Each structure stands twice: as structure tokens, then as C-alpha cells.
């Protein structure tokens, strides 16, 4: 090794040591001013542990998460649903999709340590993607966050071969930040993540509805409407679910409320018009349909067709 090389190595190590005293931003914020809503220490000891076979951290992590909320799956049953043999790993979107295939609402959390810890405090384990090494030499790895300790500045995980891995919070953040703070939870029917955003959550429910049918998600829509009564997505979602299940009274109520709270929503007015038309209440339906058409926008075509359908039905 030349002198120059040796010197740059020394400087490099020195810089690394300096940097190691620094704390990454989310950890610093969490430890510096922890939210009052968060207990100092939580550990979800009941989250089951599945040891992973080679490269199977995706199926293993998802199995732990799903079993905790009542879905009986094993890493072996999940493997064909999300493992990519030639990549020796699993993709993030397929983690979400596989959770859905097994009947759970798959919700991707906001990229915030704060949200992850609040989910833990609410009893929901969180699946995270870490890059254990470097951005230029990635070692991608899924693990399940099951606890934290603010006093000891620690994160507790079920991770690969370790049933209970305790990481310094800052180390966890370094490894997690390299996946852009990717985190997900799997929720059973009727349950909403503590930190869920209304629109993102309804989108997640609707994704499950598409592959598993409306019946499976109806209780979730009802719960969502209860949690976010004035939210347009929740109102439309609950209304559509009721409509699909032929509960026109409940559907009408949801759409009416939506049209009242959001008078510029073509979706609310259009669906209200259709629901009224189905009950042969054509005059009211016509009024709503006209309002929808007059609003224009990207859904105008749909509104026009609804109007035409109602006019045709009236002539019969």
C-alpha cells in the first residue's frame, strides 16, 4: 500500500468515526422530542416467528405480519406468490399484492419512523424493507418491526435468523432510509391502521375489493366512513360497496351525504343518480344527473351516459 493510499484510508476512517457520532434525522427528532401519544416502550411479543430459508425474508416477514392479524399462512404457502427465483428476492409491490391475495388490506405507511412506532403502539407489526449494506452495494432485506424502546434508543425486530433482533435506533434508520423508508402493514377486515391517510387507505381497500369481492371489504368501508365521516373517498367507497351488495338505501344515504359535503364531486352525483334511477325515482335521478353533467371534468363522459340511461328508462 502506498503512503498516499494509507493516508486516505486513515482520513476515511477518521471521517467515518466523526460521522458515527451524528444521528440520522428521524431518530434525532424521535429521541429529542418524542410525541406524547407514544408509550416509552412497546414490544409485541405475540408476533410469531418464522425462521427464513435462504433468500426467503419476504415470505417469512409477510407470514409473521399476516398471522398476527389472524391469517393462517406460512412462508412456504407465500413463496410462490411473491418470490422471484432469478432475483433471489421479493419485490415491494408483490409484498403488498400477496397480502391482498390472502385477504388482508395491504397498506403502505408514510415514510416516517413516527408512523411505524405508532402502529407498533397500536398493536400492529410493521414490515420494513432495509438495505443492510450500501446504496452502491445493496443487500435488500425484509424484516418485521415488533417493538421499540425510546429510553434505550432501540428498535426490536424479527429479522432473518434472529427471532429478537435489537438494533440501535440510528442503525435501524440508516438501513431503512436506504429503501426510502418503505414500510407496510397488513390489516384484517374492518380494521384501519392507526396512522392511515383516508385517501390512501380507501385506495388500498379498493385494491383488495377488486380481487376478493365487495363482501369481504364491506365492514372495512363502514369502519372507514365512521373514522372519516366527511371524507369523499370514504363516502364513495362505502356507497359503492352498499350498491354492489344491493343495499340501495345505504348507498343512497352515502352518496347523498357525499354530494352534500362535496357539491363539486361528479362521482358522488353520478352514483347518486344511478342509485335513484335503480329505484325508479327518475325525477330525483334526473336532477342529480344533470348536476353531474354540468360539472364536466374527466368523468363527464360517464355522467352523460348515466343521464342518457335515465332518460331512456323514463320513456319505457
Amino acid at each position, binding site marked *: 500500500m502506498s503512503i498516499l493510499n494509507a493516508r486516505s484510508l486513515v482520513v476515511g476512517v477518521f471521517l467515518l468515526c466523526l460521522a458515527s457520532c451524528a444521528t440520522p434525522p428521524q431518530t434525532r427528532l424521535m429521541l429529542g422530542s418524542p410525541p406524547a401519544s407514544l408509550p416509552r416502550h412497546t414490544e409485541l411479543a405475540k408476533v410469531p416467528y418464522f425462521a427464513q430459508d435462504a433468500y426467503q425474508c419476504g415470505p417469512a416477514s409477510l407470514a409473521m405480519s399476516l398471522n398476527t392479524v389472524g391469517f393462517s399462512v406460512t412462508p412456504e404457502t407465500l413463496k410462490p406468490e411473491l418470490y422471484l427465483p432469478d432475483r433471489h428476492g421479493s*419485490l415491494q409491490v408483490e409484498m403488498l399484492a400477496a397480502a391482498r391475495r390472502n385477504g388482508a388490506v395491504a397498506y403502505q405507511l408514510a415514510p416516517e419512523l413516527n408512523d411505524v412506532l405508532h402502529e407498533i403502539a397500536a398493536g400492529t407489526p410493521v414490515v420494513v424493507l432495509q438495505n443492510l449494506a450500501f446504496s452502491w452495494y445493496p443487500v435488500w432485506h425484509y424484516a418485521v418491526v415488533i417493538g421499540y424502546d425510546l429510553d434505550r434508543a432501540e428498535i426490536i425486530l424479527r429479522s432473518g435468523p434472529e427471532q429478537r433482533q435489537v438494533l440501535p435506533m440510528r442503525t435501524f434508520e440508516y438501513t431503512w432510509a436506504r429503501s426510502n423508508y418503505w414500510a407496510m402493514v397488513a390489516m384484517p377486515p374492518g380494521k384501519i391502521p392507526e396512522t392511515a391517510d383516508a385517501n390512501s387507505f380507501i385506495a388500498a381497500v379498493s385494491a383488495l375489493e377488486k380481487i376478493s369481492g365487495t363482501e369481504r371489504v364491506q365492514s372495512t368501508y363502514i369502519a372507514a366512513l365512521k373514522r372519516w365521516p366527511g371524507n369523499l*373517498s370514504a363516502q364513495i367507497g362505502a356507497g359503492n360497496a352498499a350498491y354492489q351488495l344491493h343495499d340501495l338505501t345505504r348507498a343512497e344515504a352515502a352518496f347523498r351525504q357525499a354530494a352534500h359535503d362535496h357539491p363539486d364531486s361528479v362521482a358522488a352525483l353520478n352514483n347518486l343518480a344511478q342509485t335513484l334511477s335503480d329505484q325508479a325515482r327518475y325525477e330525483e335521478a334526473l336532477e342529480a344527473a344533470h348536476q353531474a353533467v354540468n360539472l364536466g371534468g*374527466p368523468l363527464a363522459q*360517464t355522467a352523460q351516459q348515466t343521464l342518457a340511461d335515465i332518460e331512456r328508462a323514463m320513456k319505457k
Partner: protein
Amino acid sequence: MTQQYSRFMRWTSRVVMLSMLAMGLPMQSAFAVMVDTNQAVSHELAGQDRAKISAFLDRADVLAQLQKQGVTANEAKARVYALTDDEAHNIAGKLDKLPAGGDGVLGVLLTIFIVLLITDILGFTKVFPFTHSINRR
């Protein structure tokens, strides 16, 4: 000859694609013209013909890529079906480059091994189960 053949194939595949799309399109409006929940949430043009075609193409690409990565044809179909349009769009064309969590620490070169060992100890990385960070905060 080959060129003619590939042109024929291209057109055939387009015709097949469009007819498959056409089969799917009028089904929804046969009963009622509801704005579905996904459409209402995304506020995009989801559900419109152009969006449907691009979603279809994304899915076709993901289906092919999954099989290329070693997933059986049947399973690949089921996996594509479970994706949302947005998800399919986000991974179409880059299945081989996206992060695939698998924890493969095998084949780490010696230099990288040493660097990782140091950074593990400093708490920037956590590759090896036997390391303990020196610095807790």
C-alpha cells in the same frame, strides 16, 4: 420472410389485445354507469379507454418479466392479477432492477467484507449477525 413473419405477429398480437380489451370494456356499463371507488380516489383517468390500454400493456409486460425471472406461467398470471394498475405501472419494464429483498450476503468480496465489518461496527450497516455497534445513539 422473417420480417414479414414478425410484422404478422405484431399485428396479430395487436388484434388479440384489442379484442380482449373490447371484451372487457362494455361489460361494466351494461348494468349501470357507476364511478368506481378506485376511479374516485385516484382522480385520474382510470377507467377511460386510453388508461385501460396502457394498464393492459403494463400488465402484459409484468407478466412476461415475471416468467423471465423464473415464475411459472400460471402463478405469474395470478400474481399480475393481484397488482393494482398503479403497481403494475410502477414495476413495468424494470423488474430486473428494482430492489428485491432477499438478504443475499453470499459472495461478498473480501474488501467489501472488511468495509462492511467496519461500518457494521460503526452502526451504519447491519449485515453480519455477530457485530455489535459501538455507538448506540
